[in-house]
Protein backbone atom coordinates (compact mmCIF):
# COMPACT_ATOMS: atom_id res chain seq x y z
CA UNK A 1 0.00 0.00 0.00
CA UNK A 2 1.44 3.38 -1.05
CA UNK A 3 1.06 6.07 1.55
CA UNK A 4 0.64 9.42 -0.15
CA UNK A 5 0.61 11.35 3.13
CA UNK A 6 2.96 10.63 6.02
CA UNK A 7 2.71 12.59 9.24
CA UNK A 8 5.35 11.67 11.80
CA UNK A 9 5.53 12.81 15.43
CA UNK A 10 4.10 16.22 14.70
CA UNK A 11 4.29 18.70 17.59
CA UNK A 12 3.51 22.39 17.89
CA UNK A 13 4.29 24.43 20.98
CA UNK A 14 3.29 28.07 21.33
CA UNK A 15 4.43 30.02 24.38
CA UNK A 16 5.35 26.76 26.14
CA UNK A 17 1.81 25.40 25.56
CA UNK A 18 1.60 22.21 23.54
CA UNK A 19 -1.07 22.73 20.90
CA UNK A 20 -0.27 19.54 19.03
CA UNK A 21 1.37 16.64 20.79
CA UNK A 22 3.08 13.85 18.86
CA UNK A 23 0.58 13.24 16.07
CA UNK A 24 1.43 10.49 13.58
CA UNK A 25 -0.69 8.99 10.84
CA UNK A 26 -0.53 8.00 7.19
CA UNK A 27 -3.05 8.12 4.39
CA UNK A 28 -3.10 5.78 1.41
CA UNK A 29 -3.82 6.88 -2.15
CA UNK A 30 -7.56 7.08 -2.82
CA UNK A 31 -8.53 7.22 0.85
CA UNK A 32 -11.12 9.71 2.08
CA UNK A 33 -10.04 10.58 5.60
CA UNK A 34 -12.35 12.40 7.98
CA UNK A 35 -10.70 14.67 10.51
CA UNK A 36 -12.88 15.12 13.56
CA UNK A 37 -12.61 16.78 16.92
CA UNK A 38 -14.19 19.44 19.11
CA UNK A 39 -13.40 23.13 18.67
CA UNK A 40 -9.83 23.90 19.73
CA UNK A 41 -8.77 20.26 19.45
CA UNK A 42 -5.98 21.10 17.00
CA UNK A 43 -7.54 20.06 13.68
CA UNK A 44 -6.87 23.31 11.85
CA UNK A 45 -3.36 23.62 13.32
CA UNK A 46 -2.53 20.09 12.13
CA UNK A 47 -3.93 20.87 8.66
CA UNK A 48 -1.95 24.13 8.54
CA UNK A 49 1.25 22.29 9.49
CA UNK A 50 0.53 19.68 6.82
CA UNK A 51 0.21 22.46 4.25
CA UNK A 52 3.33 24.34 5.35
CA UNK A 53 1.45 27.39 6.64
CA UNK A 54 2.60 26.76 10.20
CA UNK A 55 6.02 25.33 11.02
CA UNK A 56 6.00 22.30 13.31
CA UNK A 57 8.06 22.52 16.50
CA UNK A 58 8.96 18.88 15.95
CA UNK A 59 8.05 16.19 13.48
CA UNK A 60 7.72 15.81 9.77
CA UNK A 61 5.06 15.88 7.04
CA UNK A 62 5.54 14.27 3.65
CA UNK A 63 3.09 14.83 0.82
CA UNK A 64 3.62 12.58 -2.23
CA UNK A 65 7.11 11.82 -0.87
CA UNK A 66 8.11 15.49 -0.55
CA UNK A 67 8.90 17.08 2.80
CA UNK A 68 6.62 20.09 3.26
CA UNK A 69 9.30 22.16 5.00
CA UNK A 70 12.28 21.38 2.77
CA UNK A 71 10.51 20.86 -0.58
CA UNK A 72 7.46 23.02 -0.11
CA UNK A 73 6.83 23.92 -3.78
CA UNK A 74 7.14 20.30 -4.98
CA UNK A 75 4.90 18.99 -2.19
CA UNK A 76 2.20 21.60 -2.78
CA UNK A 77 2.23 21.18 -6.57
CA UNK A 78 0.21 18.00 -6.07
CA UNK A 79 -2.11 19.38 -3.41
CA UNK A 80 -5.36 21.33 -3.57
CA UNK A 81 -6.66 22.83 -0.36
CA UNK A 82 -9.29 25.00 1.18
CA UNK A 83 -8.50 26.02 4.74
CA UNK A 84 -11.21 27.75 6.78
CA UNK A 85 -13.32 30.33 4.91
CA UNK A 86 -12.09 30.66 1.31
CA UNK A 87 -10.61 34.08 0.47
CA UNK A 88 -11.01 35.79 -2.91
CA UNK A 89 -10.63 39.19 -4.47
CA UNK A 90 -14.16 40.59 -4.24
CA UNK A 91 -13.60 43.09 -7.05
CA UNK A 92 -12.79 40.28 -9.49
CA UNK A 93 -15.19 37.78 -11.03
CA UNK A 94 -15.18 34.11 -10.04
CA UNK A 95 -13.52 33.30 -13.37
CA UNK A 96 -10.84 35.98 -12.97
CA UNK A 97 -10.05 34.72 -9.47
CA UNK A 98 -9.50 31.19 -10.76
CA UNK A 99 -7.52 32.56 -13.70
CA UNK A 100 -4.87 33.88 -11.28
CA UNK A 101 -4.25 30.40 -9.94
CA UNK A 102 -4.48 28.80 -13.40
CA UNK A 103 -1.69 31.12 -14.56
CA UNK A 104 0.40 30.30 -11.51
CA UNK A 105 0.13 26.58 -12.22
CA UNK A 106 0.32 26.98 -16.02
CA UNK A 107 -3.11 25.40 -16.40
CA UNK A 108 -5.20 25.60 -19.56
CA UNK A 109 -8.22 27.95 -19.40
CA UNK A 110 -10.51 25.04 -20.36
CA UNK A 111 -9.79 23.55 -16.95
CA UNK A 112 -11.29 26.65 -15.30
CA UNK A 113 -14.57 26.04 -17.18
CA UNK A 114 -14.37 22.37 -16.20
CA UNK A 115 -14.08 23.03 -12.44
CA UNK A 116 -16.68 25.80 -12.55
CA UNK A 117 -19.10 23.36 -14.18
CA UNK A 118 -18.21 20.74 -11.55
CA UNK A 119 -19.38 23.05 -8.74
CA UNK A 120 -22.29 24.51 -10.79
CA UNK A 121 -20.93 28.02 -11.03
CA UNK A 122 -20.76 28.33 -14.83
CA UNK A 123 -23.72 30.73 -14.98
CA UNK A 124 -22.24 32.96 -12.28
CA UNK A 125 -18.63 32.92 -13.42
CA UNK A 126 -18.73 36.53 -14.64
CA UNK A 127 -20.28 37.90 -11.46
CA UNK A 128 -17.98 39.73 -9.07
CA UNK A 129 -17.15 37.58 -6.04
CA UNK A 130 -18.35 40.31 -3.65
CA UNK A 131 -21.85 39.55 -4.99
CA UNK A 132 -21.51 35.80 -4.32
CA UNK A 133 -23.40 34.18 -1.44
CA UNK A 134 -21.49 32.26 1.23
CA UNK A 135 -22.40 28.99 -0.46
CA UNK A 136 -21.18 30.23 -3.85
CA UNK A 137 -17.86 31.33 -2.32
CA UNK A 138 -17.57 27.89 -0.75
CA UNK A 139 -18.15 26.26 -4.15
CA UNK A 140 -15.58 28.56 -5.75
CA UNK A 141 -13.11 27.59 -3.00
CA UNK A 142 -13.70 23.94 -3.78
CA UNK A 143 -13.29 24.66 -7.51
CA UNK A 144 -9.94 26.32 -6.76
CA UNK A 145 -8.83 23.30 -4.75
CA UNK A 146 -9.67 21.04 -7.73
CA UNK A 147 -8.08 23.34 -10.33
CA UNK A 148 -4.56 21.87 -10.55
CA UNK A 149 -5.81 18.25 -10.75
CA UNK A 150 -4.24 17.46 -7.38
CA UNK A 151 -3.47 14.02 -6.05
CA UNK A 152 -4.35 15.18 -2.53
CA UNK A 153 -7.24 17.48 -1.64
CA UNK A 154 -7.56 18.90 1.87
CA UNK A 155 -10.85 20.58 2.66
CA UNK A 156 -11.65 22.31 5.93
CA UNK A 157 -15.42 22.44 6.50
CA UNK A 158 -16.23 22.13 2.77
CA UNK A 159 -19.99 22.13 3.26
CA UNK A 160 -20.12 25.33 5.35
CA UNK A 161 -22.84 27.61 4.00
CA UNK A 162 -24.15 25.08 1.50
CA UNK A 163 -27.82 24.14 1.30
CA UNK A 164 -28.79 20.44 1.69
CA UNK A 165 -28.73 19.88 -2.08
CA UNK A 166 -25.31 21.55 -2.30
CA UNK A 167 -23.99 19.34 0.52
CA UNK A 168 -25.11 16.19 -1.32
CA UNK A 169 -23.59 17.45 -4.60
CA UNK A 170 -20.21 18.16 -2.98
CA UNK A 171 -20.28 14.76 -1.31
CA UNK A 172 -20.97 13.10 -4.68
CA UNK A 173 -18.14 15.03 -6.36
CA UNK A 174 -15.68 14.05 -3.63
CA UNK A 175 -16.65 10.38 -3.74
CA UNK A 176 -16.57 10.28 -7.55
CA UNK A 177 -13.10 11.87 -7.70
CA UNK A 178 -11.74 9.49 -5.08
CA UNK A 179 -13.13 6.50 -6.95
CA UNK A 180 -12.49 7.45 -10.58
CA UNK A 181 -9.21 9.36 -10.27
CA UNK A 182 -7.86 7.88 -7.06
CA UNK A 183 -7.65 11.32 -5.48
CA UNK A 184 -6.93 11.31 -1.75
CA UNK A 185 -9.09 13.52 0.45
CA UNK A 186 -8.74 14.82 3.98
CA UNK A 187 -11.95 16.42 5.14
CA UNK A 188 -12.44 18.37 8.36
CA UNK A 189 -16.05 18.68 9.36
CA UNK A 190 -18.33 19.00 12.33
CA UNK A 191 -21.12 17.22 10.50
CA UNK A 192 -20.57 13.63 11.62
CA UNK A 193 -23.25 12.31 9.25
CA UNK A 194 -21.33 13.76 6.31
CA UNK A 195 -18.06 12.19 7.44
CA UNK A 196 -19.78 8.83 7.97
CA UNK A 197 -21.31 9.00 4.49
CA UNK A 198 -18.12 10.02 2.71
CA UNK A 199 -15.06 8.78 4.53
CA UNK A 200 -13.54 5.33 4.69
CA UNK A 201 -11.15 6.34 7.48
CA UNK A 202 -11.38 8.72 10.35
CA UNK A 203 -9.11 10.46 12.85
CA UNK A 204 -10.56 11.86 16.05
CA UNK A 205 -8.36 14.42 17.72
CA UNK A 206 -8.74 16.05 21.12
CA UNK A 207 -6.47 18.40 23.08
CA UNK A 208 -3.77 18.03 20.44
CA UNK A 209 -3.62 14.23 20.57
CA UNK A 210 -5.09 11.52 18.38
CA UNK A 211 -7.86 9.79 20.31
CA UNK A 212 -8.87 7.39 17.59
CA UNK A 213 -7.66 6.52 14.09
CA UNK A 214 -8.74 3.84 11.64
CA UNK A 215 -11.37 2.64 9.16
CA UNK A 216 -14.80 4.05 10.09
CA UNK A 217 -16.64 0.70 9.97
CA UNK A 218 -14.02 -1.12 12.06
CA UNK A 219 -13.89 1.62 14.71
CA UNK A 220 -17.66 1.91 15.01
CA UNK A 221 -18.43 -1.82 15.09
CA UNK A 222 -15.34 -2.64 17.16
CA UNK A 223 -16.57 -0.33 19.92
CA UNK A 224 -20.06 -1.85 19.79
CA UNK A 225 -21.58 1.36 18.43
CA UNK A 226 -24.20 1.81 15.74
CA UNK A 227 -23.20 5.17 14.31
CA UNK A 228 -20.11 7.33 14.00
CA UNK A 229 -21.82 9.89 16.23
CA UNK A 230 -22.20 7.31 18.98
CA UNK A 231 -18.58 6.29 18.57
CA UNK A 232 -17.41 9.92 18.58
CA UNK A 233 -19.18 10.56 21.91
CA UNK A 234 -17.63 7.42 23.35
CA UNK A 235 -14.12 8.17 22.06
CA UNK A 236 -14.15 11.68 23.50
CA UNK A 237 -15.70 10.54 26.76
CA UNK A 238 -18.48 13.09 26.63
CA UNK A 239 -22.20 12.79 27.34
CA UNK A 240 -23.51 14.33 24.16
CA UNK A 241 -22.49 16.54 21.25
CA UNK A 242 -22.96 20.26 21.63
Amino acid at each position, binding site marked *: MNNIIEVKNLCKTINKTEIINDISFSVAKGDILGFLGPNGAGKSTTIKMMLGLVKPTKGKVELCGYDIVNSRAEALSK*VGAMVEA*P*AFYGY*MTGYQNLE*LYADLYGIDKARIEEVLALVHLTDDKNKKVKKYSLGMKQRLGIA*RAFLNKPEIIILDEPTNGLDPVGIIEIRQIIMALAESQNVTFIICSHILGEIAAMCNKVIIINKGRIVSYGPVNELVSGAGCNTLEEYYIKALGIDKIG
Partner: protein
Amino acid sequence: MVKLLKIEFRKMHNSGLFLAGFAVVTLICLGISAIELSAKGFGIKESSYTDFMIYNATFVVVKFFAPLLMVLLAASVWGSEYANGMTKTFMLCKCSKSQFYISKNIFLLIMCAVISVLSFGVLTAVGIIRDSAGNTGAGDVWNMAKVYMLSAAGLIPITLITVLASIFLGDFQKSFACGLVVLLLSIAFDSVGAGSYLSPTHFLSCSPLTFYGTEKPISYAVLAAYIVILYLVGLFSFRKKDIWS
Protein backbone atom coordinates in the same frame (compact mmCIF):
# COMPACT_ATOMS: atom_id res chain seq x y z
CA MET B 1 8.35 34.43 -9.78
CA VAL B 2 7.46 36.19 -13.05
CA LYS B 3 4.02 34.58 -12.80
CA LEU B 4 3.56 35.95 -9.28
CA LEU B 5 4.64 39.37 -10.48
CA LYS B 6 2.11 39.20 -13.33
CA ILE B 7 -0.57 38.32 -10.78
CA GLU B 8 0.24 41.48 -8.80
CA PHE B 9 -0.18 43.61 -11.93
CA ARG B 10 -3.37 41.83 -12.93
CA LYS B 11 -4.83 42.39 -9.45
CA MET B 12 -3.90 46.05 -9.64
CA HIS B 13 -5.42 46.35 -13.11
CA ASN B 14 -8.66 44.57 -12.18
CA SER B 15 -9.12 46.59 -9.02
CA GLY B 16 -8.92 49.83 -11.03
CA LEU B 17 -5.98 50.98 -8.90
CA PHE B 18 -3.77 51.66 -11.92
CA LEU B 19 -6.21 54.23 -13.24
CA ALA B 20 -6.90 55.64 -9.77
CA GLY B 21 -3.16 55.85 -8.97
CA PHE B 22 -2.44 57.54 -12.31
CA ALA B 23 -5.21 60.05 -11.68
CA VAL B 24 -4.10 60.73 -8.08
CA VAL B 25 -0.43 61.32 -8.95
CA THR B 26 -1.30 63.52 -11.94
CA LEU B 27 -3.88 65.55 -10.04
CA ILE B 28 -1.59 66.06 -7.04
CA CYS B 29 1.21 67.29 -9.29
CA LEU B 30 -1.11 69.56 -11.28
CA GLY B 31 -2.77 70.81 -8.09
CA ILE B 32 0.50 71.68 -6.42
CA SER B 33 1.70 73.37 -9.61
CA ALA B 34 -1.52 75.40 -9.81
CA ILE B 35 -1.28 76.50 -6.16
CA GLU B 36 2.35 77.44 -6.61
CA LEU B 37 1.61 79.40 -9.80
CA SER B 38 -1.21 81.37 -8.26
CA ALA B 39 0.22 82.06 -4.79
CA LYS B 40 2.13 85.27 -4.92
CA GLY B 41 4.88 85.46 -2.36
CA PHE B 42 4.78 81.77 -1.67
CA GLY B 43 8.27 80.32 -2.04
CA ILE B 44 10.50 81.72 -4.73
CA LYS B 45 8.65 82.44 -7.93
CA GLU B 46 11.33 81.53 -10.37
CA SER B 47 10.49 81.33 -14.00
CA SER B 48 13.15 78.94 -15.27
CA TYR B 49 12.39 75.23 -15.44
CA THR B 50 15.29 74.27 -13.15
CA ASP B 51 14.36 76.78 -10.47
CA PHE B 52 10.73 75.72 -10.60
CA MET B 53 11.73 72.10 -10.16
CA ILE B 54 14.21 72.75 -7.36
CA TYR B 55 12.50 75.39 -5.26
CA ASN B 56 8.84 74.87 -5.65
CA ALA B 57 6.42 72.10 -6.53
CA THR B 58 8.61 69.08 -7.03
CA PHE B 59 9.88 68.45 -3.59
CA VAL B 60 6.50 68.77 -1.97
CA VAL B 61 5.54 65.81 -4.11
CA VAL B 62 8.68 63.80 -3.47
CA LYS B 63 8.91 64.66 0.20
CA PHE B 64 5.36 63.89 1.21
CA PHE B 65 2.84 62.72 -1.38
CA ALA B 66 4.91 60.04 -3.11
CA PRO B 67 5.99 58.34 0.18
CA LEU B 68 2.40 58.58 1.45
CA LEU B 69 1.19 56.78 -1.66
CA MET B 70 3.88 54.13 -1.27
CA VAL B 71 2.99 53.56 2.41
CA LEU B 72 -0.64 53.15 1.35
CA LEU B 73 0.26 50.77 -1.48
CA ALA B 74 2.66 48.67 0.64
CA ALA B 75 0.09 48.35 3.43
CA SER B 76 -2.50 47.33 0.85
CA VAL B 77 -0.28 44.82 -0.99
CA TRP B 78 0.95 43.19 2.25
CA GLY B 79 -1.18 44.11 5.28
CA SER B 80 -4.55 43.96 3.60
CA GLU B 81 -3.77 40.63 1.91
CA TYR B 82 -2.68 39.13 5.21
CA ALA B 83 -5.88 40.30 6.86
CA ASN B 84 -8.27 39.03 4.18
CA GLY B 85 -6.62 35.61 3.92
CA MET B 86 -5.17 35.99 0.42
CA THR B 87 -1.59 35.51 1.64
CA LYS B 88 -2.65 32.21 3.20
CA THR B 89 -4.42 31.21 -0.01
CA PHE B 90 -1.37 31.92 -2.16
CA MET B 91 0.82 30.08 0.33
CA LEU B 92 -1.24 26.96 -0.42
CA CYS B 93 0.04 27.11 -4.01
CA LYS B 94 3.29 25.76 -5.35
CA CYS B 95 5.38 28.85 -4.75
CA SER B 96 8.06 29.33 -2.17
CA LYS B 97 7.79 32.01 0.50
CA SER B 98 10.93 33.69 -0.85
CA GLN B 99 9.49 33.89 -4.38
CA PHE B 100 6.28 35.35 -2.97
CA TYR B 101 8.17 37.93 -0.92
CA ILE B 102 10.53 38.91 -3.73
CA SER B 103 7.78 39.23 -6.36
CA LYS B 104 5.64 41.48 -4.15
CA ASN B 105 8.62 43.69 -3.36
CA ILE B 106 9.68 43.91 -7.00
CA PHE B 107 6.13 45.01 -7.73
CA LEU B 108 6.40 47.74 -5.08
CA LEU B 109 9.78 48.80 -6.44
CA ILE B 110 8.29 49.11 -9.93
CA MET B 111 5.45 51.17 -8.49
CA CYS B 112 8.00 53.46 -6.78
CA ALA B 113 9.59 53.98 -10.17
CA VAL B 114 6.24 54.52 -11.90
CA ILE B 115 5.13 57.14 -9.35
CA SER B 116 8.49 58.89 -9.58
CA VAL B 117 8.58 58.93 -13.38
CA LEU B 118 4.93 59.96 -13.67
CA SER B 119 5.22 62.82 -11.16
CA PHE B 120 8.48 63.94 -12.74
CA GLY B 121 6.85 63.89 -16.18
CA VAL B 122 3.84 65.98 -15.10
CA LEU B 123 5.96 68.50 -13.17
CA THR B 124 8.46 68.77 -16.00
CA ALA B 125 5.64 69.48 -18.44
CA VAL B 126 4.29 72.25 -16.15
CA GLY B 127 7.82 73.57 -15.57
CA ILE B 128 8.55 73.82 -19.29
CA ILE B 129 5.18 75.44 -20.03
CA ARG B 130 5.69 78.12 -17.38
CA ASP B 131 9.29 78.78 -18.44
CA SER B 132 8.66 82.26 -19.75
CA ALA B 133 12.04 82.55 -21.45
CA GLY B 134 11.46 79.24 -23.19
CA ASN B 135 15.10 78.24 -22.97
CA THR B 136 14.77 74.86 -21.22
CA GLY B 137 17.07 72.37 -22.91
CA ALA B 138 17.19 68.58 -22.91
CA GLY B 139 20.30 68.83 -20.72
CA ASP B 140 18.35 70.69 -18.01
CA VAL B 141 15.65 68.02 -18.00
CA TRP B 142 18.21 65.21 -17.90
CA ASN B 143 20.10 66.79 -14.99
CA MET B 144 16.89 67.34 -13.08
CA ALA B 145 15.75 63.76 -13.84
CA LYS B 146 18.94 62.39 -12.22
CA VAL B 147 18.45 64.53 -9.11
CA TYR B 148 14.74 63.72 -8.90
CA MET B 149 15.30 59.98 -9.22
CA LEU B 150 18.05 60.09 -6.60
CA SER B 151 15.61 61.79 -4.25
CA ALA B 152 12.98 59.19 -5.10
CA ALA B 153 15.37 56.42 -3.99
CA GLY B 154 14.36 57.56 -0.51
CA LEU B 155 10.94 56.01 -1.19
CA ILE B 156 12.40 52.51 -0.90
CA PRO B 157 13.24 52.48 2.85
CA ILE B 158 9.82 53.84 3.90
CA THR B 159 8.11 51.29 1.62
CA LEU B 160 10.16 48.44 3.13
CA ILE B 161 9.41 49.68 6.67
CA THR B 162 5.68 49.44 5.87
CA VAL B 163 6.20 45.95 4.38
CA LEU B 164 7.96 44.86 7.55
CA ALA B 165 5.17 46.32 9.70
CA SER B 166 2.61 44.44 7.59
CA ILE B 167 4.46 41.15 8.03
CA PHE B 168 4.53 41.58 11.80
CA LEU B 169 1.09 43.14 12.27
CA GLY B 170 -0.82 41.36 9.48
CA ASP B 171 -3.32 44.15 9.13
CA PHE B 172 -3.87 47.06 6.73
CA GLN B 173 -4.81 49.78 9.20
CA LYS B 174 -2.03 49.03 11.69
CA SER B 175 0.59 48.70 8.94
CA PHE B 176 -0.50 51.94 7.29
CA ALA B 177 -0.50 53.74 10.65
CA CYS B 178 2.96 52.38 11.43
CA GLY B 179 4.35 53.45 8.03
CA LEU B 180 2.76 56.89 8.40
CA VAL B 181 4.16 57.44 11.90
CA VAL B 182 7.67 56.46 10.77
CA LEU B 183 7.33 58.73 7.73
CA LEU B 184 6.25 61.75 9.77
CA LEU B 185 8.84 61.20 12.51
CA SER B 186 11.51 60.70 9.91
CA ILE B 187 10.56 63.93 8.09
CA ALA B 188 10.69 65.74 11.46
CA PHE B 189 14.10 64.24 12.17
CA ASP B 190 15.30 65.40 8.75
CA SER B 191 14.81 69.01 9.81
CA VAL B 192 17.08 68.59 12.84
CA GLY B 193 20.16 69.16 10.74
CA ALA B 194 23.17 67.34 12.16
CA GLY B 195 22.83 63.62 11.76
CA SER B 196 19.72 63.92 9.59
CA TYR B 197 21.37 61.63 7.05
CA LEU B 198 20.54 58.81 9.47
CA SER B 199 16.82 59.12 8.83
CA PRO B 200 15.24 56.68 6.36
CA THR B 201 13.65 59.53 4.40
CA HIS B 202 16.78 61.71 4.24
CA PHE B 203 16.99 61.53 0.46
CA LEU B 204 13.37 62.57 0.11
CA SER B 205 13.83 65.54 2.38
CA CYS B 206 17.20 66.95 1.46
CA SER B 207 17.39 69.82 -0.97
CA PRO B 208 18.23 68.87 -4.55
CA LEU B 209 21.11 71.27 -4.37
CA THR B 210 22.82 68.91 -1.96
CA PHE B 211 23.07 66.36 -4.74
CA TYR B 212 25.21 68.79 -6.73
CA GLY B 213 28.30 67.77 -4.82
CA THR B 214 27.75 68.60 -1.16
CA GLU B 215 25.94 65.43 -0.07
CA LYS B 216 28.13 63.31 2.22
CA PRO B 217 29.09 59.86 0.90
CA ILE B 218 28.01 58.44 4.26
CA SER B 219 24.36 59.26 3.45
CA TYR B 220 24.55 57.02 0.36
CA ALA B 221 25.93 54.22 2.53
CA VAL B 222 23.14 54.76 5.08
CA LEU B 223 20.49 54.58 2.33
CA ALA B 224 22.01 51.36 0.95
CA ALA B 225 22.23 49.90 4.46
CA TYR B 226 18.55 50.72 5.14
CA ILE B 227 17.47 49.04 1.91
CA VAL B 228 19.58 45.89 2.37
CA ILE B 229 18.83 45.43 6.08
CA LEU B 230 15.08 46.09 5.81
CA TYR B 231 14.82 43.81 2.78
CA LEU B 232 16.66 40.94 4.47
CA VAL B 233 14.88 41.32 7.82
CA GLY B 234 11.55 41.28 5.93
CA LEU B 235 12.52 38.16 3.99
CA PHE B 236 13.75 36.37 7.10
CA SER B 237 10.65 37.35 9.10
CA PHE B 238 8.24 36.29 6.36
CA ARG B 239 9.97 32.92 5.95
CA LYS B 240 9.88 32.31 9.70
CA LYS B 241 6.37 33.58 10.37
CA ASP B 242 3.50 31.13 10.73
CA ILE B 243 0.45 31.98 8.66
CA TRP B 244 -2.56 31.36 10.89
CA SER B 245 -5.31 33.24 9.10
